[in-house]
């Protein structure tokens, strides 16, 4: 998998993506200057708190945000060289579900309650691969077996409410993988599930990824999931990238104070005595009242007066490692 990250041209290349929302109080910027590359077989983890812009990033990759209230202000989303931002609605319909698929957070509401799961899995097969009803049905049986649904043929006639949460997420994954997409976006795929099911679904995703050689974008707020699953990590805060690096680098030497704070707030494993779990003080700023300078400065223990004025640019701080912090070199010296 590491080889994939080093070789070849990127499958998906996002450049300086900025997304704005139209609200009654005016335009707000939900995502500002996100860039990353993704190669076949590679997994990119996007991490951040609620409101950091990670789901908005995911939705804009497939242009699924409502055009009436959102606007992609800047940037490029190149899928094998084609810019998705410039694609027409009918071109988008051909890309969605065939080249790029998405799995949403909540399997309870991701499936249509009044249609059988067989019907819902067959839809993309019939649409994109032009399979006949019978062919699509056979493929759906294979897919359901592939994602570990017991007695797949009988399950075709089931309705979503007859399945458990974990099974529904398996169905959603089967649906997303139906046309063997090149890129799978998983937006908090396990957040709504219980812990044992979470592990099963992640194992399943990993297994399917290596079988199908897909690129995966895993959106999560759980650094543990990222550590286990991702090759690269992109950390977002208040709509901006604050750090991006290979996963081992990030856990060994996180540079941005926000990332360090996130890592410190993971409960330690084992029976270590811990007085209190460290947390990052304060909350994510409201998009209507963004702090000046570095958006993280009100919560940052290292903030200096310069942090209140300049928005830090992403700067290289190691191989494939960038961070957006004005004091990154000073802090490095401090820790050394």
């Amino acid at each position, binding site marked *: 998998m590491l080889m994939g990250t080093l070789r070849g041209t990127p499958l998906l290349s996002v450049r300086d993506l900025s997304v704005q929302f139209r609200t009654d109080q005016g335009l707000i910027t939900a995502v500002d200057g996100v860039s990353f590359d993704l190669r076949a077989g590679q997994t990119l983890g996007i991490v951040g708190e609620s409101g950091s812009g990670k789901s908005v990033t995911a939705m804009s990759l497939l242009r699924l945000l409502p055009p009436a209230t959102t606007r992609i202000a800047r940037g490029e989303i190149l899928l094998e060289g084609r810019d998705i931002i410039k694609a027409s609605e009918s071109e988008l319909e051909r890309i969605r579900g065939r080249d790029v698929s998405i799995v949403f957070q909540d399997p309870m509401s991701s499936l249509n309650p009044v249609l059988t799961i067989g019907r819902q899995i067959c839809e993309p097969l019939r649409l994109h691969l032009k399979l006949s009803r019978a062919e699509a049905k056979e493929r759906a049986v294979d897919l359901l077996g592939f994602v570990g649904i017991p007695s797949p043929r009988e399950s075709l006639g089931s*309705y979503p409410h007859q399945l458990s949460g974990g099974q529904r997420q398996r169905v959603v994954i089967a649906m997303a993988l139906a046309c063997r997409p090149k890129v799978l976006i998983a937006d908090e795929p396990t957040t709504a599930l219980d812990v044992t099911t979470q592990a099963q679904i992640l194992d399943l995703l990993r297994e399917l990824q290596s079988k199908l050689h897909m690129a995966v974008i895993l959106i999560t707020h759980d650094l543990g999931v990222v550590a286990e699953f991702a090759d690269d990590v992109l950390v977002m805060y208040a709509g901006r990238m604050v750090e991006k690096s290979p996963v081992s680098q990030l856990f060994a030497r996180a540079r941005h104070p926000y990332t360090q704070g996130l890592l410190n707030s993971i409960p330690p494993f084992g029976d270590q005595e811990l007085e209190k779990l460290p947390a990052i003080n304060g909350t994510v700023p409201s998009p209507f009242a963004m702090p000046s300078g570095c958006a993280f400065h009100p919560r940052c223990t290292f903030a200096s007066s310069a942090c209140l004025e300049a928005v830090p640019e992403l700067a290289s701080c190691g191989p494939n490692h960038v961070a957006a912090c004005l004091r990154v070199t000073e802090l490095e010296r401090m820790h050394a």
Partner: protein
Amino acid sequence: MLRTIAHRLTLAPLTLLLVSFVTFIILRVTGNPVDIYLDINRTPEQVAALTERLHLDKPLLVQYLIYLRDLVQGDFGQSLQYGGPAIDAVITSIGPTLRLLSAALLLAVTLGTVAGLVAAVYRDRFPDAVLSALAVAGQSMPSFWLGILLIQLFALKMQWLPTSGSGGFKYLILPALTLSAVLLPNFMLVTRTAVLDLMNEQFVATARAKGLSRIRILLTHILPNAANPLLSFLGIQIGTLMGGSIITESIFGWPGIGRLMISAVSNRDAPVVLATVFLVSITIILANLVVDVLHSIIDPRIRH
């Protein structure tokens, strides 16, 4: 499902009992039929005969029980205006009313669904503004006035359609339009709201992410989900529609239950009034039963 139907059916006689009781008492306490059916020159013998025939000399509750005893045997009594059995007049009127009701229902549901979908898709834009304004105008327009306007325009001015009466399909058009207007504006607005609500559902985003086109999502994902709230709305509106048919039938001289009921009430023909109310109640109970069955056909969560 079968249990629900059985449950409903066991409740039906109770509903009918209550309806007949209330109607019977109201009819009896608001006037003595003898005073209406026998003129000034009546003889005491005539009065005595009618009083005995209608059991008017007995206490009210006993009168009701006698009525109930006959009712169970299928005897609704004799019509005071027509002379024959009350039920005969009602049965000949039920056909035209059902024809009118189903035509109006069909019009309101199809037009209302289409208009509601269009309004939802073009939310806050021109087509929505026009349709929603029309709906509000329709809601505030009494059906007797709309009926008269339609007669003036299509029957008197254009002379395309007959003003009133019954016969072929031509006679059905104006009454059906008038009656459908009772339901159409609300049905359109309910459709619009239901569709707009569903558009924000996660499964719609999933369907879009699969690459389905908007129109396809609307027809195959949203509409089947909207069917349930719409059906519930129809269930509630059946009574309103029945009430609307009384007015419509009177305007257009449509030979249905509504017109029969009006003439029976104004002539104090108690047996006919009772029989019509009874039949209308049965129709409403059955219609709600059909709504329940359709609910379970549409929504697997109710079925299982």
